[in-house]
């Protein structure tokens, strides 16, 4: 028999108590995993951001346009490798609850800047040559049952009218974090239509996508762009793509902070539950620890026994929790995708969340064992034996 066997036998001495404690840890780890996945989902856009892309927008707000003519000036700044244009479209697809991001872009310059939106060569060519064509992400294509060649209509709000599109491409993300819930169509189509209805809104763009040669150029280029349009009718604000994405995340900063706090509280609660279990265990076994000491077992042996038992329960609970997390978070993600897919384009259990949850379970096991261990190792043998009665 090894000491490890005694650890396992001790852990299973009160089976119901140990199983309930382990299940408590499992549920806490599951809750922790779900909450951290929600946080990850909010940050997914930030995580997917490029280090070498800038977004230039009107300094007042995203709702204010900038002249298309800025593009040529920006393109001439040293270090700029490409400039594309974009416009948030808004609108409604069939029902207002069918929300997904819709952008008017210039495919020729946009697609090279965003290689993470993967299209086949034929899809790319079809998108480029047909004025009212569009490409959509694979997730919304699946959700709405779209296939290549389908016609879809958007009811405009920022840009009033009925807008008809034909789907010429369904893009997939190059990375796990790539948002597959967006729609892109030709800015030229938007501009032409505006020429027929509201000419004053022609040749305006919502933002410029700016590619830079290296991350070292980012600060200089962004400062140069904004300085270039200082004191103009449309002053600009240029940010890295990450800062741009973070500005959206910060709008719900309080919610995210609350979710983070709750995830920590969940772990703290289960820490108290396990600590209570281990304290009860140590109290019940004072005499046994005294006997072991009498036989020559040292404080380090008792430490191993108590920590081992606590870790056994926490690892068991953590493992069950993580195993449950995989299907439950997947199912939760599918449930969210029905109505909130565009807010949480990627809702997956990440490796970092798995590691965090495992670390939390292990930490709980370690911390819960500290006080019982101190009690067991400090008690005098004679006092412990007297405890027997």
């Amino acid at each position: 028999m090894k000491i490890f066997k005694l650890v396992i036998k001790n852990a299973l001495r009160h089976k119901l108590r140990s199983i309930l404690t382990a299940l408590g840890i499992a549920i806490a780890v599951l809750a922790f995993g779900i909450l951290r996945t929600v946080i990850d989902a909010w940050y997914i856009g930030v995580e997917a951001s490029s280090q070498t892309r800038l977004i230039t927008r009107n300094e007042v707000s995203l709702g204010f346009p900038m002249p298309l003519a800025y593009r040529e000036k920006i393109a001439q700044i040293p270090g700029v490798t490409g400039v594309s244009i974009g416009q948030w479209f808004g609108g409604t697809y069939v029902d207002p609850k069918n929300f997904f991001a819709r952008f008017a872009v210039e495919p020729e310059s946009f697609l090279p800047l965003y290689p993470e939106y993967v299209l086949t060569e034929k899809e790319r060519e079809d998108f480029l040559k047909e004025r009212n064509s569009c490409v959509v992400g694979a997730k919304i294509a699946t959700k709405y049952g779209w296939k290549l060649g389908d016609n879809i209509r958007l009811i405009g709000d920022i840009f009033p009218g009925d807008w008809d599109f034909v789907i010429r491409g369904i893009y997939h993300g190059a990375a796990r974090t790539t948002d597959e819930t967006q729609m892109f169509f030709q800015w030229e189509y938007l501009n032409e239509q505006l020429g027929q209805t509201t000419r004053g809104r022609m040749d305006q763009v919502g933002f410029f996508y700016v590619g830079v040669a290296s991350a070292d150029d980012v600060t200089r280029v962004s400062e140069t762009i904004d300085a270039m349009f200082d004191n103009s009718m449309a002053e600009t604000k240029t940010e890295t793509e990450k800062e741009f994405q973070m500005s959206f995340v910060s709008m719900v900063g309080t919610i995210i902070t609350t979710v983070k706090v709750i995830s920590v509280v969940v772990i703290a609660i289960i820490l108290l539950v396990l600590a209570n279990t281990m304290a009860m265990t140590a109290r019940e076994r004072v005499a046994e620890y005294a006997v072991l000491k009498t036989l020559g077992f040292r404080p380090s042996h008792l430490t191993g026994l108590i920590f081992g038992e606590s870790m056994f329960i926490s690892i068991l609970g953590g493992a069950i929790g993580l195993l449950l997390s995989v299907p439950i978070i997947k199912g939760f993600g599918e449930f969210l995708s029905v109505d909130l897919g565009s807010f949480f384009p990627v809702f997956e259990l990440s490796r970092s969340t798995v590691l965090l949850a495992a670390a939390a379970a292990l930490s709980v096991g370690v911390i819960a064992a500290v006080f019982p261990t101190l009690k067991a190792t400090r008690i005098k043998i004679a006092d412990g034996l007297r405890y027997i009665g």
Partner: protein
Amino acid sequence: MANVVDIRGVNKSYTRGNQKIPVLNNISLAVPDGEFLALMGPSGSGKTTLLNLIAGIDRPDSGSVSVANTELSKLSESALANWRSQHVGFIFQFYNLMPVLTAFENVELPLLLTKLSKSKRHEHVKSALDIVGLGDRMKHSPNQLSGGQQQRVAIARAIVTDPTLIVADEPTGDLDKDSAGEILTLLERLNKEFKKSIVMVTHDPRAAEKAHTIRHLDKGELENVNHKK
């Protein structure tokens, strides 16, 4: 004959609240090698305290305790634990077996601290259980054994490391008359046949009858020697 236990001028007191309660007063005791000594006395007389000092699980306030040629007060806690594992076998009134372990595993416990191989440990444990007559109960857990059988497992645990000295604190205190008789016969056999020195604390005059020497302790002081055999 050399002394296995040599205690000189030992004092021990406990503190309860602000009050200091003397338990042992200037005790001196020599136990020759191979002796079977019974310590008797009323409750609170200091018998168990003296036994704890001999076994190295408590320390005196003053005086010296030498057991198996080792001055215990000079040992660190770690060295004392190591010394106990090699030189002393313990028998408790309430057996103090680990309820989650089998008889075999309980007896094997002290050997886990040694460098013996698994097969050697198995050999020693089987031999100890055979001596106490429980070779056929190795896989039984304590709650499947009677009180007398549990105490015999405890005795096997006490002798499995082949210690110099066996200390027993009221070993028959929780047993019926027949079981107590069996345990005392076993202790007598360990003393005579296996030459183990034994110091036993007991209230039971019939238990004390099995010892070579009976020493009475009263109010922390040892009375005169009562050699029986």
